[in-house]
């Protein structure tokens, strides 16, 4: 019974009767301390699994399997578009977080005078060290991500990689590409220059033209039927709070499913 005292449970005695180096002893003590509190044993199997996954042999790629190494470029560039867009997303996230230190989504109106938002972008580009480069990187990584996502979709379509077990991932991909464009759109509005303003105007009109739910949508997304401070602020929160969480989560699920199902065998 578990209630009886057993020798195996006398961990201290067990440690003393073995000849351990200082390092091993420290390690075991720490392990026991943590185990007693967090039940690490229960997770040991997971760790073991992880170890084997890290040291896993990758399956033969298509080029290896069919001996195509000498016929085509080894890394089929089109199959890298998905990871390329993920990389661009990470670059955009980092540069965007840095831009966020200096940008203020405030005092939006449309009188032709520079607003706080517009001035902060100008400051970033003209006064801040490497600010021009930072904004440039953010903008270009966003453009590149969108382009890569579009091309990725074409690649998946033309190689039939959306077929049977992968329908769900195709749908998630379509949600992701749409959200990427919403990301781009909300970011386009933030500098609050002429193009932002008029693109926003088109957005409000599109929202208003939805039957039945139009006015509600316009209120929700743009904070009214004309472009005001509320619009800018909502676009900002969408761009830096809601979308990053949703898109990052969906990307994780998207890649996780690819991991589980394997890459559709290329030709």
């Amino acid at each position: 019974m578990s209630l009886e005292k057993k020798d195996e449970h006398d961990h201290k005695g067990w440690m003393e009767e073995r000849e351990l180096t200082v390092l091993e002893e420290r390690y075991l003590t720490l392990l026991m301390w943590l185990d007693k509190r967090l039940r690490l044993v229960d997770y040991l199997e997971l760790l073991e699994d992880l170890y084997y996954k890290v040291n896993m042999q990758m399956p033969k790629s298509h080029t290896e399997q069919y001996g195509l190494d000498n016929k085509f470029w080894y890394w089929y560039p089109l199959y890298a578009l998905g990871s390329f867009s993920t990389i661009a997303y990470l670059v955009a996230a980092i540069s965007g977080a840095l831009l966020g230190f200096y940008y203020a989504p405030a005092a939006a109106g449309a009188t032709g005078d520079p607003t706080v938002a517009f001035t902060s972008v100008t400051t970033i580009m003209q006064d801040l060290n490497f600010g021009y480069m930072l904004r440039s990187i953010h903008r270009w990584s966003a453009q590149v991500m969108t382009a890569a996502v579009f091309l990725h979709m074409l690649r998946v379509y033309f190689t039939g990689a959306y077929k049977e077990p992968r329908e769900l991932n195709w749908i998630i991909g379509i949600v992701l590409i749409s959200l990427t464009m919403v990301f781009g759109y909300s970011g386009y509005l933030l500098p609050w220059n002429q193009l932002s303003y008029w693109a926003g105007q088109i957005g409000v009109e599109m929202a208003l033209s939805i039957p039945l739910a139009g006015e509600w949508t316009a209120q929700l997304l743009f904070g009214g039927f004309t472009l005001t401070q509320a619009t800018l602020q909502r676009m900002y929160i969408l761009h830096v709070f809601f979308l990053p969480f949703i898109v990052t989560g969906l990307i994780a699920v998207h890649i996780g499913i690819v991991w589980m199902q394997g890459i559709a065998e290329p030709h």
Partner: protein
Amino acid sequence: MSDNDTPETETDGGTGIVPPDDETPTWSERKERTEGLSRLTYEYFERARREDQDLRQESSYVERDVLGFPAWPHEMIRNLALTSFFVGMIVFLSATLPPEMMPPANSSSTPAVILPDWYLYWSFGLLKLGPLNPDLALLGGSKLMADRTYGVLANLVIVGAITIVPFLNKGAARRPVEQPFWAAVGVFGVTFAFTVSVLSVKNLVPMDSHLLFDLTFLLPFVAGFIAYAILKSMREGYMFTLNRRYYRLRPPK
């Protein structure tokens, strides 16, 4: 009850958060106890596992030797190389082509050219499909919905059509040569995305706008038919013989 009488329950001064053995149900007991949906889930999993095993045993399928590169360090180094190459590309682009400075927002002066970013041109172009919006005789020649509603609806229709592709096109065929029709549909879609993007910036295109509108819908069909013809002939042609070995390995269902 004195301290001496207390049975020695603790082994090494533990926290006692471990459930006692005799009360912890085993997995099979848990399975028997559960009811309803979780019971069904267990039963299904068991069936699915048995089915897998049966299939594995009765099939003549020989497992391929899939040993390739180890993930660490080979794959990781390759991935790092690719990543730094791509990041370098982005940095190069941003250093050479920085964004331009724009005038601040002004509601009283509409700019001559209003444009979203390039990746929204297709959606912007779909908003300009007013001429296709049918006016119904029943309603006295008036339109069923406003042109802009029609445009927003067109966006939804296109996204919806792309979404249901996997449920329309089934089967094991993967290459464009194996499925000329669906490849042609894809070429049609890509061309249409391109032409409708051009339509969205029609005030910048040096062409009669009616001609542009007609071409917007004509060119995708032309491109689609050409793609279909080419793929059909390729299917009969040398590609097919070139890949015969592959088809023997994995015949199309």
